């Protein structure tokens, strides 16, 4: 338990990595490996003697994390070209946002990133608050931060389980990891159930604060659960990190070039695993992150194993942050506006566009909102654009896949942690 406090956070300072600066960002030299594969390559240009096979992986496939469809051109088992097809889970959330009022949007966006729903609520409500310039009380900001960190832990736990499935299959060792991470996630869902009454789609954030206050005894329970989880994180390290086969499957597989990643707009753990030290929680503090110190774990190898290390370190860091914040939740109101559920309760008086972003478990989750200038439509946004990190992460696939074995493609795809609900919206 005490190891939690002293768990080393790798910042890549002292492991003999050569650094260079690209566009004002420090990146490891070894990972920059242009020329990158051409995603628009004409397969006619490939070896004409090769016997190529087109394999449509998905949208119904056990390892495409939902309904992603990847068209692979295979030479034997080696991928030559990869084209991801998105849109099988498109529900028109952004269009719905133009029809619903600011109050009604929150439960809709819950369904975007269904692994960490509260992050969506936080992101979109922060944008609305910025648009109408609403204040958020300090207590509410604390609750938001604690919830966000616990959501991050839950999200990474789910990722770890499904990543195990990608490598070991549901029947086998992968299934064992999956079951264990889901047991832990269950504890976190119980916490949220106590807090909001819901286990999954909470609708707890609203413009100017939170809808649900911390119930009596919740802080103690949460602290206990988090402490237990911290110990189990070490169990996972024994079970997964020190597993020979896990290493054989992840080390050196799916190396992400940080420069390419930045050009594609990738953020979050994928970029941090490639050595780029960015984290919006620290760089543009929102909610209560300005009141607490945040260590940002980074790795310098950029492969699937590095992404695993970064996510597990983030999990431990999130447990620490949430535990520390739980000790000092300030008293006060939890919302600056009255918690009315009438659709027209929140009105924007101007048509300015604002952008606000948070660090979701998958990276920068941003929202761009334009208020409606028409007086009768003041309670409805004119445009609401959601910038989802998973969507950008999937742009990497055409660069990661060529030259790799089919098994490696599955692992690389899993390590990107795409959530299709968020990709297609």
């Amino acid at each position, binding site marked *: 338990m005490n190891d939690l406090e002293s768990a080393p956070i790798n910042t890549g300072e002292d492991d003999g990595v050569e650094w260079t600066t690209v566009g004002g960002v420090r990146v490891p030299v070894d990972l920059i490996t242009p020329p990158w594969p051409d995603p628009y390559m004409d397969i006619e240009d490939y070896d004409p003697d090769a016997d190529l*096979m087109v*394999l449509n992986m998905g949208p119904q*496939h*056990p*390892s495409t994390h939902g309904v992603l469809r990847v068209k692979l051109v295979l030479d034997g*088992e080696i991928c030559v070209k990869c084209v991801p097809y998105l849109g099988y889970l498109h529900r028109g959330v952004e269009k719905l946002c133009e029809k619903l009022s600011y109050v009604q949007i929150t439960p809709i966006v819950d369904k975007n990133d269904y692994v960490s729903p509260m992050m969506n609520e936080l992101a979109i409500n922060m944008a609305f608050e910025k648009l109408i310039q609403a204040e958020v009380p300090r207590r509410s900001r604390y609750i938001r931060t604690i919830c966000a960190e616990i959501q991050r832990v839950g999200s990474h736990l789910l990722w770890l389980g499904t990543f*195990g*499935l*990608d*490598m*070991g*299959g*549901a*029947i*086998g*060792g*992968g*299934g*064992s990891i999956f*079951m*264990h991470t889901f*047991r832990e996630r269950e504890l976190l869902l119980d916490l949220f159930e106590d807090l909001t009454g819901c286990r999954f789609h909470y609708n707890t954030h609203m413009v100017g604060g939170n809808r649900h206050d911390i119930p009596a005894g919740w802080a103690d329970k949460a602290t206990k659960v988090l402490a237990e989880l911290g110990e189990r994180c070490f169990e996972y390290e024994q079970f997964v990190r020190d*597993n020979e*086969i*896990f290493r*054989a*499957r992840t080390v050196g597989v799916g190396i992400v070039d940080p420069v390419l990643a930045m050009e594609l707009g990738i953020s979050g753990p994928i970029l941090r695993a490639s050595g780029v030290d960015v984290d919006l929680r620290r760089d543009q503090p929102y909610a209560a992150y300005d009141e607490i110190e945040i260590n940002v774990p980074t790795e310098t190898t950029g492969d699937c194993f590095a992404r695993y290390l970064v996510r597990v370190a983030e999990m431990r860091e999130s447990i620490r942050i949430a535990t520390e914040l739980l000790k000092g939740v300030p008293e006060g109101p939890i919302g600056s506006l009255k918690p009315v559920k009438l659709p027209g309760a929140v009105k924007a008086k101007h048509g300015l566009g604002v952008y606000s972003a948070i660090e979701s478990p998958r990276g920068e989750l941003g929202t761009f909102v334009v208020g409606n200038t028409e007086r009768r439509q003041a309670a409805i946004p004119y445009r609401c654009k959601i910038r989802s990190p998973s969507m950008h992460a999937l742009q990497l696939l055409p660069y990661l896949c060529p030259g790799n*074995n*089919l*098994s*490696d493609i*599955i692992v690389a795809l899993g390590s990107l942690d795409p959530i299709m609900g968020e990709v297609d919206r």
Partner: protein
Amino acid sequence: MTFENPWIHGLVMGLIIGNVSLAITGYSIWFERKFAGRMQNRPGPTVVGPWGLLQPVADVLKLMQKEDITPRSADKALFNLAPPLTVFVALSTLAVVPVAPGWIIADLHIGILFALALGSLMVFPVWMAGWASNNKYALLGGMRSAAQSISYEIPLLLSATVPIILADSFRITDIVEAQLGGNWFAFWPPGPGFAAFGLFFLCSLAESNRIPFDIPEAESELVAGVSTEYTGMKFGLFYLAEYLHTFIISMVAAALFLGGWDGPGDHDGFIWMALKTLTLFVFIFWIRWSYMRYRSDQLMAMCWKFFLPLGLALVMFSALWVHAS
């Protein structure tokens, strides 16, 4: 128990040993599910019968009721022949494995060669299924399976050569009798014997496509590999053959390396053979539910770069050992 007439002997023994093995295999599925459940903090099957004991029966009934689909573009003859052939090949191996003194279907003087030859036949039905399904995942699974089985044949044969050299016989009964009195080949000669045992065990796992070598199935990559297009009882036969094969390799490994029916002191008998076989069987489950799978090229590299030289070294060592003693 022996009969004068070899035909009657084979028939009676075959009925007994075959049916007992099938029953054990059926119930091993229930046991594995319970075992996996305990490993994963869940109870496993509990609903059908007391402690879910009737689960295998329910599974078989369910599989029989399923619609039997043959894809229109499949090669029907091969597609339908493959599943029974896997079970046939797996069951045939039982013929030469002694379970107790005198309890053997056919005591061939080249029993071990017969068992290994049938093991290598296993690649045909699997490849047949992969090719005949006319499905890309099945094709990839079949290709992987063929490559894997052919590669792992060689170290398997080499590791099986060690007890052959030590016992100076191809007959499995002779090999077991050479180990009577605690002189098990897994522990004697110390070190190399155990290495040969481990090599045999791992290569058998690879031959029977079990985790961590189950890349032909690889359900996270190839959906279900060779059995993607199979439904109902045809799928059930594949499933049965996989468990049967696992059970038989446990039996062969127990006979070749762990002294077969040799027990402490004078208490030799069937019970020890059963105990050793089931221990190995459970060990395979344990491995299956704690490890992920290797990639196909890593598997090949391991076979050719590590297992093959090790096997050769072990054969040479055992020859020298016999020569010296």
